[in-house]
């Protein structure tokens, strides 16, 4: 209710490499830090009280952002939102991720806020999570001497909860090369036009697929409307099965609304959030369709 002035006491340690991260993580009360933009407010509010903060952004690779046509995009966990927004390959091949990153808070905060922090904080309203989910990203989790990949789809397990096991840390997020011809859109609704936390976030990725009855496939992920970010499989099936049209979009959006289980809080009421899932899904589908099949109408 009443946050303290300044930050409580802790010890700051900078980890130079992964091995150091692993050894420092063993200390009781240790907490990893990248941008700190979620962590510091939580510390002021007393939500978390780490004894040691381990700054992991200087670990080699953590701030690397590289693209390969075949392998896709490798995003170090400590890559900032603005790095993503500005990066040519992200803009060219993963514009939906650039849109999601750009929608986060303010320019200043995006210079500090990291994608790893955004997904690991596992807030239901994390903007990059839905985008990473429709891009079918993989979370690279590093344990001592071992690395495993966790699909983004199952990464967040609850508010503030992730699939990260003790002894692991998020080193990178890998996004496969997007399907040929893919078009993405992230639409976010806040209480004000820009800069708010999302009360509804909808990510839609569409691409041509001759194997689908409709000739197209769409992936839909929702943020802020459930304890965790969600895919909307029933909506995706409708879109794969039926020719894109206003009716199809409306039916799909209805299904997307169906998977949303928001709660009423100080930011928004559940009914509004659900109905906005529908509204934003339709808008995102229209936008994506207009770019996928220019002039075809809907």
């Amino acid at each position, binding site marked *: 209710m009443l946050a303290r*002035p300044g930050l409580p006491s802790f010890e700051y340690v900078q980890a130079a490499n992964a091995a150091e991260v692993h050894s420092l993580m063993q200390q009781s009360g240790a907490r990893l830090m990248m941008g700190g933009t979620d962590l510091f407010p939580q510390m002021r509010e007393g939500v978390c009280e780490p004894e040691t903060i381990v700054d992991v952004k200087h670990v080699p690779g953590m701030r690397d952002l590289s693209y390969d046509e075949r392998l896709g995009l490798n995003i170090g966990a400590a890559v900032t939102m603005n790095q993503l927004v500005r990066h040519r390959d992200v803009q060219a091949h993963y514009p939906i991720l650039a849109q999601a990153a750009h929608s986060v808070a303010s320019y200043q905060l995006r210079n500090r806020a990291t994608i790893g922090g955004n997904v690991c904080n596992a807030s239901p309203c994390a903007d990059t999570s839905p985008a990473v989910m429709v891009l079918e990203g993989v979370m690279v989790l590093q344990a001592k001497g071992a690395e495993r990949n966790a699909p983004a789809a199952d990464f967040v397990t609850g508010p503030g909860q992730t699939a990260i096991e003790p002894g692991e840390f998020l080193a990178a997020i890998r996004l496969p090369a997007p399907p040929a011809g893919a078009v993405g859109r992230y639409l976010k609704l806040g209480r004000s036009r820009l800069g708010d936390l999302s009360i509804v976030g909808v990510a839609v990725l569409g691409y041509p697929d001759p194997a689908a009855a409709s000739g197209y496939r769409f992936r839909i992920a929702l943020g802020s409307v459930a304890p965790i970010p969600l895919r909307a499989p029933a909506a995706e099936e409708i879109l794969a099965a039926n020719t894109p049209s206003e009716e199809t979009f409306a039916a799909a959006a209805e299904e997307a609304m169906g998977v949303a289980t928001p709660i009423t809080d100080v930011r928004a*009421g559940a009914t509004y959030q659900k109905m906005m899932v529908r509204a934003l899904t339709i808008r995102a589908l229209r936008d994506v369709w207009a770019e996928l099949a220019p002039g075809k109408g809907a």
Partner: protein
Amino acid sequence: MTHATAAASQRIGGTIGRSVRRIDAHDKVTGAATYADDLLAARGPGLYYGRLVRSPHAHALIRSIDASKALAVRGVKAVVTGEDTPTRIGLYLKDRHIFALDRARLVGDPVAGVIATSEEIAEEAARLVEVEYEELPAVFDPAEAIRPDAPLIHPELGEYEVVNFIFPKPGTNISEHFKLRRGDVEAAWPQCEIIVEGTFRLPPIQHVPIEPHVAISLWEQSGQVTLWTCSQSPFAQRDLIAQSMGIPHGNLRVISPYVGGGFGGKAGVSMEACAVAMARAVKGHPVKLRMTREEEFICTNARQSLEAHTKIGCDSQGNLLAMETRYIFGGGASNEYGVNIARAAGYSCTGPYLIPNVKGDSYCVYTNTPVGSAMRGFGMPEIHWGIEQIIDQLAEKIGMDSAEFRRRNCVKTGETILTGMEMPAINLEACIDKVTEAIQWDRREPPSAPHKRRGKGIAIMWKAPAMPPNAGSSAVVRLNEDGTVNVEIGAQELGQGAFTVLAQVAAEALGVPYEWVRISAPVDTRYSPYEWQTVASRITWSVGNAVMAAAGDARHKILAVVAEHWDEDPADLDIKDGLVMSFKSEREQPLEGLVVYGLPNENFEGWKGGPIIGTGNFMPTYVTNLDFETGQGTRAVVHYTVGAQAVDLEVDTETGQLEILKIASAYDVGKALNPDLIMTQIEGGAVHGLSSAFEALKFDEKGRPLNNNLVDYRIATVADIPREIHGDIVETPLEDGPWGARGVGEHVMVQTAPAIANAIYDALGIRFSDLPLSAEKIFLALQ
């Protein structure tokens, strides 16, 4: 930028009516401008910090306080509690303890203060102070708090000291009841063709200055006490704290550097008195006390909530005949300042309309919510929210254009208004004309997309400076060797441009270039002349008059010396651009030298003159008391400023989101002393008003805040502003204003919210009677 009248550009002299550069701007763009937190910014030995222990309960008896664990923390110097400050404090009604004595009345009420060598230690120790509470039933809603069976928040109300124009009702939560009775409403209702009735509600909101409250106090062994703070009211703070703590006024020195936004929130006393009480416990050491943003939202001041019930009727021609209104302000845990908001709402309860039959009751009631206090508009944004919508409803029912309905019924110069006072010269019709023209009122424009709806709305306003009848101002003008001028005032620069305009006034009244004038800042009650408070949009007018008088006094003294020296009649002399000149002999004498050293007699046989100092003051002497039963009196207030706003907006029916396309404003400022500074008030006020329509302090069922941070209490950002803000200035001179000027600082946001609501109605046919607005609320109403 557009200005309504050619008069705006009429040059009276070199400075008045000219948009000179702000006197404070250079300091502010270089980071050199000093604010309270910048004083004693560096940690150093001997500087202590304070943190407050706050009640977690909205209403509770304090059974015991055990500070022993806190006092055992290394670095903790003292802990003070309500027992150290048992006397009450308050502006109009002394209903407050500096630290809660036996009872906490809101979540966040200060119950103890911990002083330590660092803020961090003080914070840790404050968490160790053990307070035993006995929770009491709490009440948050004003309509519930006024009921006879509501939990009593101030059982001792009858014992409180109160000014003679405020009327608390002991044994209830009612701290003020203002009654306005004019004509006979019961007889008038049958004559009405149309009657509309409605209830309108506003939640408490916060000022949200970007600078949170900061106070530093030093209590010296000698009994000299200093308080450095960001204050709209250095003198009122000196007065109230001195009275409450038994300090001779001459021993208490309040110094206020630049204020980082006030909007009323830094008027009167809030946490500053805590700092002084804490300093007394550690004599010889300055104690720095700062509010976090989270505290700023709930522990300083807020705008009061309001429930307004209004019934209004007109004849078949659209002439207003009767109004009956009941305002219940939720004044929060203390109403020491807020009682006068209810009073101001009472004596202006009709809004800017001439209505022959009026029955108005305006109440301030205690609630277990943040302390309601002055906020930009002082009751007027609250009452205009309902008035300006119900007027629209009436106009619609009678089938008249709502702008035309306002033109017909709005108050005009010389009319006898609801209190029996004759309306001083204003031109509200011209303001209506300006905004209807700017918004293209008669044109219906299509929305930009099929799922959007477009609408226009208008609202008008009035507001008088709300203050004690005899709130005074004073000024000193000192001339320097080179002819430059230092102007001493007790008024504050809050961002509104007061220092600039007062320097213009001094320059013009003395006859020197604006660039020669300096304002002696910071305001320091030891050296600065008396000023009641920087509130009520009264500075340009009241302090302007005092500075004009002081500069006139200095001018008079200078001319007397030179006239004697030249053996001429002072009436034939004038000062222009820093030169004394004679119309008769055409002789000239620069001010340089003369204003300090005087002038040598011929043949150097003696001297004339001496250092020139001019003094002046101003206090309205003509305001009368109002009858307790009827609110009638010859002169309720000093004057009114009036204005109009029109809004053009679009609603996205798929999301409920609003886009404000344009806000057009016009205000009758009497005389624009600095037109561009008025435009910046108009622009900033339009956005403040727009933002306020979406703001609310929210609490859970126990009175605990849910959004006391900038994430969940959102104020307008650059992305929320209207696409266009248009401003017009109307100039109908005020009889006793400097060059005819009256204030406009608050007025610029008073009617923005109802103008938006009227435009939403125009777009959607849906009326919102309760604030805040939100996209969610609009969307759900559309379903």
